[in-house]
């Protein structure tokens, strides 16, 4: 093992790099942040970033990048941080990832880059996400963005949905010289980044900045267009003259559990609960008109163990909830949420009830929720997902008093685009069929990716699909071959 990589700006021998502890992310104190909506993580200073970057082993085979859905060149951008050229580091990331300020905040790094970091075998992995966030924020603060100059190709692409996959497609294709217009059903751009992820985890200002950057690159945006209703895919490709369409309409209809009492007042889907807060700013009522139930002094539970569940329950806490519970039917090991979020939620005082599931909601005579009848579970044999199946324990039922319950157990496919686009193939669960490599659908010129193809997944996986789709759309537009 050589002591340092050739041409590396990092002067430290490898063994010394491993002695540097992982630099902690500065954050708001839990007791303070549990009562405000400001971002939890405060971001690295340049000094912290350089110190953390020095830990990179600069592996010859960069397994971190291999495990990144968009293929960010981690080693190169980290070396540029060590060299102190933060803007070049940002430009390096942007070659592969058009939304670094967002992925730096919400990507489950432990499943990708950091999970594959060789440092992690002996000590803590490199803080790739923290470093990515640092350079993206630095670039924004400096007001500097690399603006690629490309010759226009004369081709037009319509992108349906302005969530992470749609923005990725738009960002990648505009840099190839195609004309790109993004259609968004809601009044704000960003999709799930805006309505789903709360301010304290992803400030909306960050999304606006990323969208503004794309506007400067030439991407056009049109809000208030529900493709399938306001205009169809066929109309886009016909009278509106688009040469290709990318469908990235995202996670669809919220799933309910099908247990008695789900229609009681106080029972929400996570999508509705979060949309009221994040998109409609109900937490600022009455300055904003959107109403929200007053949660002060009330007991709230979320059902589910994913990021959406934690976003919802941490929001409830910030809206004044007295008790805030997570009810999850499996054990902690199976929880799909990002590790950092679960850690933050615990610090803030969220109570986790693992191996617990509601079987019925109970209300007063006026239809307002008063409790959830719950049952304890134990783990049995592995199920179709490979995880051990939760099995109810007989006689373990108990009532948990609650005023609000938020159901965050996933979504099913939204049918609007599929049902209005003849010839667009879907699978038996109603999601759009698309090739895993090139994201082509069964309709010529129509591509799809993200949650509307895979079902609920993560921001970065949707971006990965967007990346593949952009490459494939470019290929189709230049070759004309389907």
């Amino acid at each position, binding site marked *: 093992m050589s002591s340092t990589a050739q041409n590396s700006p990092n002067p430290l021998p490898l063994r010394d790099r491993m002695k540097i502890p992982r630099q902690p992310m500065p954050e708001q104190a839990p007791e303070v942040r549990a009562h405000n909506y400001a971002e939890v993580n405060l971001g690295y200073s340049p000094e912290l970033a350089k110190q953390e970057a020095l830990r990179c082993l600069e592996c010859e085979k960069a397994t971190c990048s291999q495990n990144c859905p968009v293929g960010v060149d981690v080693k190169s951008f980290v070396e540029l941080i060590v060299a102190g050229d933060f803007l070049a580091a940002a430009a390096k990331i942007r070659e592969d990832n058009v939304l670094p300020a967002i992925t730096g905040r919400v990507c489950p790094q432990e499943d990708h880059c950091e999970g594959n970091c060789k440092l992690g075998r002996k000590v803590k992995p490199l803080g790739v996400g923290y470093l990515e966030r640092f350079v993206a924020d630095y670039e924004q603060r400096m007001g500097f963005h690399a603006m690629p100059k490309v010759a226009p190709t004369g081709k037009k692409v319509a992108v349906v949905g302005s969530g992470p996959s749609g923005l990725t497609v738009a960002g990648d294709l505009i840099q190839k010289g195609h004309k790109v217009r993004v259609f968004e*059903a*809601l*009044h704000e751009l960003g999709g799930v980044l805006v*309505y789903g992820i709360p301010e304290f985890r992803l400030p909306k200002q960050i999304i606006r900045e990323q969208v503004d950057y794309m506007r400067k690159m030439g991407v056009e945006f049109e*809000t*208030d*267009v*529900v493709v399938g*209703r*306001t*205009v169809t895919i066929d109309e886009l490709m016909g009278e509106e003259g688009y040469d290709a369409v990318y469908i990235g309409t995202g*996670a*669809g*209809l*919220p799933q*309910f559990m099908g247990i008695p009492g*789900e*229609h*009681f*007042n106080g029972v*929400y*889907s996570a*999508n*509705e609960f979060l*949309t*009221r807060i994040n*998109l*409609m*700013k109900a937490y*600022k*009522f*009455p*300055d*904003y*008109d*959107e*109403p*929200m*139930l*007053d949660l002060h002094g009330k007991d709230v539970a979320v059902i589910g163990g994913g990021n959406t569940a934690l976003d919802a329950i941490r929001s409830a806490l910030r809206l004044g909830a007295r008790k805030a519970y997570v009810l999850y039917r499996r054990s902690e090991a199976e929880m799909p949420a990002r590790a950092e979020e679960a850690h933050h939620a615990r610090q803030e005082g969220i109570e986790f009830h693992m191996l617990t599931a509601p079987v019925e909601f109970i209300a007063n005579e*006026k*239809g307002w929720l008063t409790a959830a009848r719950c049952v304890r579970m134990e783990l049995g044999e592995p199920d179709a997902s490979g995880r051990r199946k939760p099995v109810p324990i007989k006689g373990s039922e108990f009532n948990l008093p609650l005023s609000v319950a938020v159901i965050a157990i996933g979504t099913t496919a*939204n*049918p*609007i685009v599929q049902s209005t686009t003849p010839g667009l193939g879907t699978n038996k669960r109603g999601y759009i069929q698309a090739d895993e490599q090139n994201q082509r659908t069964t309709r010529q010129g129509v591509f799809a990716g993200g949650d509307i193809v895979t079902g609920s997944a993560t921001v970065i996986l949707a971006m990965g699909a967007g990346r593949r789709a952009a490459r494939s759309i470019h290929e189709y537009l230049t070759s004309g071959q389907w």
Partner: protein
Amino acid sequence: MFKILEAKFLAPGIKRFVLEAPRIARKQKPGQFVILRIYEEGERIPVTIENSDPERGTLNIVVQSIGKTTHLLNSLNAGDSILDVVGPLGKPSEIEKFGTVVVVGGGVGTAMAYPTAAALKRAGNRVISIVGARNKELVILEREMREVSDELLITTDDGSYVEKGFVTDKLRQLMQNGTKIDLVLAVGPIVMMKAVSEMTRKDGIRTMVSLNPIMIDGTGMCGGCRVLIDGKSEFACVDGPEFDAHKVNFEVLVQRNSMYRDAEQKSLTDFKECQHAAQPAEACVPGGR
């Protein structure tokens, strides 16, 4: 921004707007609705489409002042703009030749029923319309409804116009005098739709109602508009807004629509107090307009 080209009160508290909305005007079908947001801090509310002109690219909406947003909206005039209008949303009404169709419109619901009545007439149905309102002033779209109906019956709660009574009285008469009814469409207050539904259930007359639950996005994403249909949750924005009346749980609809009554009341009271202090409407919203 969506420009208001014309604005006119049809009745006290009920206003018709003609909006410049070419995309929506091109696609609108009877039974569908739009969601709008007036200004940055505003809420999204579903609103009735009364008509559209695809050639001109205009959309007619009819709005009744109920809460803060609708009061504010009805204070707007030609030349003003609405920040967001999205649609057309929901499934269109099923239009085919059923035979004899009774279209019941209660209050502002008449505006929602009108385009469907017109389409049913064009499809060759015999259309009998029943329009009900609290009093003479609140009877809307009488001329329009008459134009698309073979027969138009009108009732007012106080008897100040045509005949004192409720729409259900007229429906009962039709059923009792042996009129063979193939379909009933009822749009109006929940109590009215429920009463119509109870009345037609016994004879098994197919009855559709257009539901008006609380909604946010209107695209199936939030699930806030779920209604209990035959014991199962359905979303009014993508599965409706029209449903088989005999399968609708109206009590749950009433209960869920009451969810934010306190907050809605506060918003309206604050807004009215502000207006009462002789402020122009735009001074009564954050940041002005």
